[in-house]
């Protein structure tokens, strides 16, 4: 029974790690929301997305969560007319990253909620273990 609780805690920790990576990628997107190309007419920063996968741990027989890939968002870049910009093409347009701060905000909320849920699992498992040990003591 206690090994199950321990496994629950380990799994929750892996979920927290995955959400941490997701948070890092969101932060990259937010930080580079205005990063344009370095040469005229080039592509700017492309929004990154995180995908998760579950990996079967053969030793402990549980499904663990891992980061699968960090892939680029293939949607269109934002266009802006700014002929004075160094990255502007011959028509005076610059490409801005396809990062939407509202979408990133929603992603961030989701990551936060998931992290908190996993934290709750760790907290509850720990309480269960401690209560069991207390019973042994009294």
């Amino acid at each position, binding site marked *: 029974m206690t090994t199950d609780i321990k496994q629950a805690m380990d799994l929750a*920790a892996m979920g927290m790690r995955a959400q941490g990576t997701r948070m890092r990628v969101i932060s990259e997107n937010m930080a580079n929301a205005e990063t344009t190309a370095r040469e005229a007419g080039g592509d700017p920063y492309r929004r990154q997305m995180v995908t998760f996968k579950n990996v079967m741990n053969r030793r402990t027989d549980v499904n663990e969560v891992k980061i699968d890939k960090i892939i680029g968002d293939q949607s269109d870049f934002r266009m802006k007319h700014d002929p004075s910009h160094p990255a502007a093409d011959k028509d005076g347009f610059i490409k801005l990253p396809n990062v939407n701060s509202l979408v990133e905000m929603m992603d961030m909320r989701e990551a936060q909620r998931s992290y908190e849920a996993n934290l709750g699992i*760790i907290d509850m498992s720990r309480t269960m*273990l401690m209560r069991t*040990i207390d019973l042994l*003591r009294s």
Partner: protein
Amino acid sequence: MVEVNGAVGAYQNALKQVTENSDKKSDGASFGDMLKESLGDAIETQHKSEQMSAAAVQGKADMIDVLQAVTEAETTLNTVLSIRDRLVQSYQEIMRTPI
């Protein structure tokens, strides 16, 4: 007379059994060995948690790893402590028994 002899024989048999049993070494690990082993385990997890905390202070370890290590050390130590408390309690109970 026969009954008395039988009773004496039974007592002697019982006495023999008791002395034989106390002389015989138990094959499996004794309770002391078990306790020693689990204490070693607890100390090992404590060391691990300390190492993790030190690494985290230096910025080399993940906070989640520290949490895991510390929680494991805490539960292991608490388990061993409560078992030890129970053992000492039973020992005292036996020592208090009037003979």
